[in-house]
């Protein structure tokens, strides 16, 4: 069996929905052992979100939960009960990393803030992912995916290329903002792990979703202080193409360099309007985009995405706008093994996206399907922490697990 990049790394996850669980999933998929702590009875919020298998709501049938929690072990625990807090600390003593997403004040009240946990485990890397970070005026403010997306500029700038400002700014589809914050947190967590292994000491990693998202548009975000310009979602022609309509949908084509524009002109059959030398200049094209666009569109509309993509690829970056169905069924996804079948005891066999990187020595792999609620209670509480089975019964009756 090939080695795993994060083999031997132990992680405790006390997080739910998308951001924290995605952060931990990234580590689990590369071989870290992740123990996920869920609320007794109800479990992770994601279990109550769709898409549900066959559209039937069920704690074990949420596609969101299944995807985000593959490769993890699952236990139930209520750290808000006194015994629960103690058990939580026992768990923390045995791990390298804790990933959590609770309001900072709550963690303090429970005695589970970094200071308290550092005393229990000085090697601990504790990653906290919250809407506005651990400190500052908004630290306790609430934000769902929608709010976070708009808190970090990405919303205000979307949808890009709006004809005017009459309509509301929007978030990206799905839960992209949350996943992005999880990715950002995972990156910092691995840097802290690297440092922990070099020095022996852990630390607290404070990740603000707002700052994570602003950083993804860092150039536009800094426009105001540097140039006095406040960028908006208003259409701004760049003269380099973009997402355009064609015969069977939409395609993105970009012509930045002179030779790329020339290639597009050739593909369009060297129309007389495009012979004007001035169009070679991207700035001139940008300034006259309103005249050019309808003529390019006319050509695009008489061809399919596949044709345009194949033809433009000789010299231009391009990409067809693809639906979920097309992403799943694409020849590229098949050739790269981007989807894999995973069998889950309750939800059965389904196709899951894997990872966007191929490691030559330490491949991404599926070790287990997402945990059933409380599936690994006995393994962790008895096997690892040394509680007896009778303890488990008592803890269950007290609502702790």
């Amino acid at each position: 069996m090939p080695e795993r990049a994060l083999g031997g790394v132990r992680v405790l996850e006390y997080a739910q929905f998308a951001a924290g669980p995605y952060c931990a999933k990234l580590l689990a998929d590369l071989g870290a052992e992740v123990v996920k702590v869920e609320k007794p009875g109800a479990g992770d919020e994601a279990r109550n979100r769709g898409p549900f298998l066959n559209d039937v709501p069920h704690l074990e049938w949420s596609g969101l939960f299944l995807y985000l929690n593959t490769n993890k072990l699952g236990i139930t625990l209520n750290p808000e009960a006194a015994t629960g807090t103690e058990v939580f600390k026992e768990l923390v003593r045995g791990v390298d990393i804790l990933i959590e997403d609770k309001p900072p004040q709550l963690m303090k009240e429970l005695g589970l803030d970094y200071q308290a946990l550092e005393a229990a485990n000085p090697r601990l890397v504790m990653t906290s992912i919250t809407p506005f970070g651990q400190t500052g005026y908004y630290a306790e403010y609430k934000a769902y995916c929608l709010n976070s997306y708009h808190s970090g500029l990405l919303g205000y700038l979307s949808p890009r290329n709006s004809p005017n400002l009459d309509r509301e700014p929007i978030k990206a589809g799905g839960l992209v903002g949350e996943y992005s914050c999880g990715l950002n947190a995972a990156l910092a967590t691995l840097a802290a792990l690297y440092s922990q292994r070099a020095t022996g000491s852990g630390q607290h990693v404070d990740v603000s979703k707002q700052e994570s998202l602003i950083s993804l548009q860092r150039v536009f975000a800094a426009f105001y202080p540097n140039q006095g310009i406040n960028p908006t979602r208003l259409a701004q022609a760049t003269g380099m193409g973009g997402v355009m309509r064609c015969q069977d949908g939409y395609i993105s084509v970009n012509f930045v360099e002179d030779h790329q524009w020339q290639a597009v002109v050739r593909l369009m059959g060297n129309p007389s309007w495009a012979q004007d030398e001035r169009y070679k200049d991207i700035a001139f094209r940008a300034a006259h985009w309103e005249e050019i666009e309808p003529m390019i569109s006319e050509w695009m509309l008489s061809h399919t995405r596949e044709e345009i993509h194949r033809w433009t690829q000789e010299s231009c970056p391009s990409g067809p706008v693809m639906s979920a169905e097309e992403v799943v069924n694409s020849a590229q996804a098949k050739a790269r093994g981007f989807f894999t079948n995973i069998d889950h005891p309750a939800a059965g066999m389904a196709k899951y996206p894997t990872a966007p990187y191929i490691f030559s020595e330490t491949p991404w792999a599926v070790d287990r399907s997402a945990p059933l609620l409380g599936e690994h209670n006995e393994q962790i509480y008895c096997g690892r922490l040394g509680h007896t089975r009778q303890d488990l019964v008592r803890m269950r009756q007290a609502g702790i697990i």
Partner: protein
Amino acid sequence: MDRAALAGVRIADFAWAWAGAHAGTLLAFLGAEVIKIESLIRPDFSRTRSLTTGQKFEGLDQSAVFNDINLGKLSVRINLGHPRGLELAKAIVQISDVVTQNWRPGAMELFGLGYKDLSEVKPDIIYLSSSAQGMTGPEGRSLGLAPDFAAIGGLSYITGYADGPPTELAGEIDLLSAYTSAFAILAALNYRQQSGYGQHIDTSSSEAISVLIGEVLMDYTMNGRVQCRQGNRDEFMAPHNCYRCRGEDKWVSIAVGSDEEWRAFTNAIGNPEWTEDPSFSDAHSRWRNQQQLDKLVEDWTLARSHYEVMEILQQAGVAAVPSFNSQELYSDPHLKERRFWQEIEHPIIGRQTVAGPPWKLSATPARVYRHGPLLGEHNEYVFGELLGLPSDEIVRLVEEKIIY
């Protein structure tokens, strides 16, 4: 000064533009020494032009965009087309831990700088290749920019108004690819720290987007459903939208996730009569009648500033946050308190305000160590100090346009 998380890690950075180049910057924030390898023949794209605005920059050292995307790096100039230039590049790799590149798949190999070539020079090298659709498969030589990654990745299709076209997405898409690469490099660094082995990583910028819509893809694989665009709407929650506030283009996002939050919301806005309407009595009826509900909520927000709405609703325990713009984020008290914005002096374009690192690490703080480098700014340090070339040889290499 505190120790940096990645103290002692050196990166030979052949990457350019945004998706490739910014991965190195993220690692530089964490303390890695990142040496960007460029030349007059092929300076980084964003030195000359902004792909977000189309803006052109006069010289090669005047781009605020390049500065921001390449903060904290060093730069050397090497003519890679010359055999001696190639030797210099390999000498840098020999003293590095990581190589990053996002040239068109196959191009580095043509120069003799592929993973095979460089792992002969440095057997435990971690070599990260980033490309539009990965280096294998029928699209394995594909050319792409951010809008193409978002299109192929499936995100453009589901982003937009319900009655509008798919949305073009750019800057954040490139940087998500950069974050993905930086994460993968860190996983490989951790593995090398334990095992002593390097490896090659082939990152697909389009797949880097697809993995972020996992549940949307699973709705298709489990249920055969193709999700479409729906603006700000949520599958269950309502109200769940951006509402216009007082002022020009001012909006607040409000999301109500439970009956408890709904009651908090109606109390906070003074329980106007319409909140008693049975069409809003439970979560499902609110969701079904959300168009009507949105209008009523907006009647209330319109009379207030988006900050006021945030304060009133957050005090009541309801998630409400303005759709912030650049100006507001720059003057925002919360971000000021967290010292998110930082100032950096650039020798040509002067003082620049930049977003600081997006994490606060208590023991090994991340930092913006320096401005984005001038082209070849660190020739002396890298060729002289690190590689030990005598200064007369450096002068000769410059004259022969090998350091170019």
